[in-house]
């Protein structure tokens, strides 16, 4: 159990036909039935067949997670649904772009921390940086926390993208 209320965090990946309205269908399902979305990412992953992969981070009791998967699988444009959390250890990554405006000691400290976190510097002025950081969500969150204490920041996060470990393909077209 992840939380006191018995809810668990799950990463669910979905392979869908890349057609108009498919994202609205998925999001509408979550809002209409009262499920949580912590993050959601989507992009085309296969051009010829026109397939997109949606990665959803959600939380709920085991019964709710089962419902989410069953409800998703019911949608016509959805090819397959995979619960990466249930599958075992999945690799999850998130990318964030962080702009920080500061100077003096704080500016040096920001650069030092960015180095420690292996963040890349993408842009700089005399009183600002734009960092790129990749990692799991907690690493990204920790980095953002530190930056926020060192200056004025603006944040862009992609949300989680994930895939299973090992030599099997979990999501395939019908």
């Amino acid at each position: 159990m992840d939380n006191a209320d018995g809810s668990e965090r799950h990463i669910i990946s979905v392979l869908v036909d890349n057609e108009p309205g498919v994202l609205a269908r998925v999001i509408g399902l979550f809002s209409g039935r009262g499920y949580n979305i912590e993050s959601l990412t989507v992009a085309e992953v296969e051009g010829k067949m026109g397939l997109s992969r949606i990665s959803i981070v959600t939380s709920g009791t085991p019964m709710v997670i089962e419902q989410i998967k069953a409800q998703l699988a019911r949608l016509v444009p959805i090819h397959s649904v995979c619960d990466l959390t249930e599958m075992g250890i999945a690799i999850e990554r998130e990318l964030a772009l962080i702009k920080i405006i500061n100077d003096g000691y704080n500016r040096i400290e920001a650069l030092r921390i960015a180095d420690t976190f292996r963040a890349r510097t993408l842009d700089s002025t005399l009183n600002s940086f734009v960092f790129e950081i990749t990692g799991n969500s907690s690493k990204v969150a920790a980095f953002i926390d530190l930056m926020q204490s060192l200056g004025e920041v603006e944040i862009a996060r992609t949300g989680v993208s994930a895939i299973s470990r090992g030599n099997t393909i979990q999501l395939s077209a019908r």
Partner: protein
Amino acid sequence: MQKEFGKQTMKNSSTTEKKSARVTDDILLLSGAEILLKVLEDEGVEIIFGYPGGAVLPIYDALFKNNKIRHILVRHEQAAVHAAEGYARSTGKVGVVLVTSGPGATNAVTGLTDALMDSVPVVCLTGQVPTHLIGNDAFQEADTTGITRACTKHNYLIKDGEKLQHSVAEAFHVARSGRPGPVLIDLPKDLLMGEFKYIPNRIIEPAKRRYQPKVNPDDRLIAKAVSLMKKSTKPIIYGGGGLINSGPRASELLQELVEFSGWPTTLTLMGLGALPASDKHFIGMLGMHGTYEANLAMHECDLMLNLGARFDDRVTGRISGFSPGSCKIHVDIDPSSINKNVHVDLSIVGDAAIVLEKIIAEMKKQGFKSQSTSLKGWWSKINAWQAKKCLEFDQSGEVIKPQQAIKRLCELTRGLDPYVTTEVGQHQMWAAQYFDFELPNRWMTSGGLGTMGYGLPAALGVQVAKPDSLVIDISGEASFMMNMQELSTLSQYNLPVKIFIINNEWMGMVRQWQELIHGGRYSESYSASLPDFVKLAETFNMTGLVAHKPDDLDDVISKMLEVPGPVIADIRVAKEENCFPMIPSGAAHNEMILGPADQIKKPVSEEGMVLV
């Protein structure tokens, strides 16, 4: 009839006349509207319920020249969908609706939601403004696919004419396969008028279809189910609408299973007719207004075999008190119905008929024998509950009891194989309790959504599908008023629907709940300014009848059945009668109230008050 008349008066339509061009031997070049009708023909469509408007004029023009598809002109788009539902539920075919853009589509939303909740296969064709105007707030534009995404099983906005044939064919496949439901196709006007390729007799291989719901159950699970069933001493079969949707074979197999096992069987509101009401194993409907014996048997059973029912809140009552000691087996075609409300011990995903066939075969293979002594004990317990006679009522005095009206209607139509629709409210529950259904597809009622105004247009749709059958809309005076414009449709097509209005001058179920949980403060629940239903019938060229006293009842019903055309029978019933037995909201099956006296003893809990 209309259409033929229209054809004779056709003057000069040569401006739009065009011979279809043949691209090659097996590809035709046709307008979008013509392709649409071709695909409907390919899908076996004979009837469309619809209402014209600007965006669908090209389809209506193509219909004018078409001799295979009959169009029924309703008076409101909501009614078109309910009529298609009635058509679909009485025949097992897909119902088809054709409406225009904007208001045509938004008016259809209630019907689509109703069809979604009750799993009725419907294809709804909506017009849309031309592609280049989409998003411009054009006249009669609405984001139809956006609005209907949540109330359809699937929907399409077709912008590419080359995809029209495939998408419409897929829509029919989606509507009728797996758990059936409504599918909407939004058709921009430029697409309907443009020319595209149509390939006659094109069949998409089942394996290549992108929507392939599971219908064949795992044999391993069947064997497990039967081994659980063998151990049961207090079993019950709980059947639902999935048995009806699966087709008549499922009902035959249910009867075989019941005969073979000797098990008591209860049915949901959606499942009535799956087992003949006269079968000695049938212990009545279950749920909020179900029988005492069915609900208590559900509460005390040790094994529940759920066949195509979805543990709806009207059935379960308070979940924490629902059948606490039983092992639950759930058979459903929709995996998302499993473990949604009630956690079950064994789930089998598959079509009801296929599962039943396999279960019966497996029972024979495993040498299934009911635990006869214990089953006898279980039945004697059930018989004791039945002895309470929970549906008994007192017909005395000079006022017709609503229960008596429906009971007599049932008795006087026995042998006539009637098709019954209802509206929503007290009369609906009385119809479910007092009308006996011997066969599936004879009972059409709005269960999930509870749509007042469903019954009249649904009856219209049934009558179109079954022109020679007796079709009765058991109605309430308030519900009837919600879609009474359809009297005009009945009149136009001379559809002999019998409208049997249980008139108590109240929105009876609203009033009952106001008594139950709001101290009898009858806020806005009185049906004031009712029309004279006899005169109303006459203005629409149909017969109007009225029954005031119990002695009038049989005469009015007989007259109603004798008159060849449509009839409105206004049955003036006891105004204050309430619907019992009842599981009050927030209560469990064993906390039923049997009548008004019981109601005072068992007030509704605070948790129950917030429930609907």
